[in-house]
């Protein structure tokens, strides 16, 4: 690891004053929460901050469900949120996405804030032995474009970066219209999760809209996302403890055998958590017949671009949507 000064601030305002900036590979000051992603990146010299500011003990870890919906503090762990009775009953999509993530140990350590801001698993990003990675070293090129790109994105890509955003949680949350509450030295603001991450375009090293010093303090999910029939389908190379090749988060409201409204988001295929409004519109008022689902899911491929090894994802993601809607619709 690159040498760093470890700050253990006593409260949040002290933490904010260091000007740490997550999701930016040139930031000299960074936060560490559960550490499950950060320690790996430090070990591998991918992140080399001079100062590391611990968020331990300074952020809310509560989980509440009220008339406004669900709210959990950024310090709540993956294990805590996944096992929370109210989450399991009213927002099972979130619990399912979490239980399909990482391992029990990592879920005990990892926080909600850190999960949303975890860095891509692109193997070229995570190995400084490769020179070309625009996300890690701006302007150096992208080794994945002509390299092994089976794991890479087909939606929201640019000619500068095709890395997938790896969070399962974020896919479920974006389908449920979640927002993140941010706090900086200048005050508080709330940002829809769909706007937290940036598209790579020609600046893949800038991953989020966070300003220097800003932290995620909480995540909120509106009440109208409660009680929907839902399913998180995760397709991966082994049965457990693996990132998604493709995942689909689906929540539907049905009337008899027809879908009234649908929310659909995909993981493993987008450069950010990927919501699909066109598929949702097409699904509304359709029956759960496989043929009907299939033609709606086909719209997910609009704008998709494969790079060779990952071409199969374009077909697989459509099938994942169909399967997830079928499973959600079959729940009594």
């Amino acid at each position, binding site marked *: 690891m690159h040498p760093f000064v470890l700050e253990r601030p006593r409260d949040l305002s002290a933490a904010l004053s260091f000007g740490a900036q997550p999701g930016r590979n040139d930031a000299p000051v960074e936060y560490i929460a*559960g*550490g499950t992603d950060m320690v790996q990146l430090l070990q591998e010299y991918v992140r080399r901050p001079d100062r590391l500011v611990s968020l331990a003990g300074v952020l809310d870890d509560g989980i509440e469900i009220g008339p406004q919906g669900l709210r959990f503090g950024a310090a709540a762990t993956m294990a805590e949120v996944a096992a929370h009775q109210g989450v399991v009953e009213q927002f099972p999509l979130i619990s399912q996405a979490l239980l399909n993530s990482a*391992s029990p*140990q990592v879920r005990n350590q990892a926080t909600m804030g850190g999960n949303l801001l975890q860095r891509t698993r692109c193997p070229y990003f995570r190995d400084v032995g490769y*020179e*070309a990675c625009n996300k890690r070293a701006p302007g150096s090129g992208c080794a994945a474009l002509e390299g092994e790109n089976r794991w890479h994105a087909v939606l929201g890509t640019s000619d500068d970066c095709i890395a997938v955003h790896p969070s399962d949680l974020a896919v479920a949350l974006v389908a449920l219209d979640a927002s993140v509450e941010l706090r900086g030295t200048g005050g508080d603001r709330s940002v829809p999760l769909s706007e937290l991450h940036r598209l790579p375009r020609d600046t893949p090293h800038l991953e989020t809209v966070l300003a220097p010093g800003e932290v995620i303090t909480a995540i909120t999910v509106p009440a109208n996302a409660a009680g929907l029939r839902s399913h998180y389908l995760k397709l991966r190379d082994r049965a457990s403890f693996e990132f998604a090749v493709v995942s689909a988060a689906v929540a539907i409201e049905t009337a008899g055998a027809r879908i009234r409204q649908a929310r659909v988001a995909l993981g493993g295929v987008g450069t950010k958590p990927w919501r699909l409004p066109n598929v949702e519109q097409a699904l509304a008022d359709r029956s759960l017949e496989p043929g009907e689902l299939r033609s709606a899911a086909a719209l997910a491929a609009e704008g998709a671009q494969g790079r060779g090894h990952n071409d199969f994802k374009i077909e697989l993601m459509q099938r994942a949507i169909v399967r997830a809607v079928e499973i959600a619709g079959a729940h009594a």
Partner: protein
Amino acid sequence: MRGAISPAVAQAAGAATAPLDVSLRINGTEHRLSLDPRTTLLDALREHLHLTGSKKGCGLGQCGACTVLMDGMRVKACLSLAALAQGREIKTIEGLAQGDELHPLQASFIERDAFQCGYCTSGQIMAGVACISEGHAGSPQDIREWMSGNLCRCGAYDHIVAAIQDAAAVYSSTQEG
């Protein structure tokens, strides 16, 4: 292009950072250490306290060989900075037996021959203890899913699952009786 780590990076890696006073509570004993802030909990255990029961397989959270309990919950010690573990109650494989009496899961690992080279074993046992206390050892399928963070390169999985099932049964019978 795969290149070497630049000399600047290698040099920075060798530079010293001011040591931190860290107090760690391990298996019920308080230890005062002066540590480089980069020290992981796993390295503090192995290199500074010579508690080498917890193993380093990958150092990246992927194998589970370093599993310890923190405030009763299983975690990967290689992903924790030691300085941030201050104030937590840490339990390692060295703290599991009561004197000469093995923990039921240690005994059932021997009984079921649940290891070959033994490298993953202390992590498997610590994760298994948590798996049982969390109530996730109800069926072989459950055990497989909830033990998926612990890899065994020797492929002793069937025996590991059997050992955890046995120990879970001992637990529930002692709780009922």
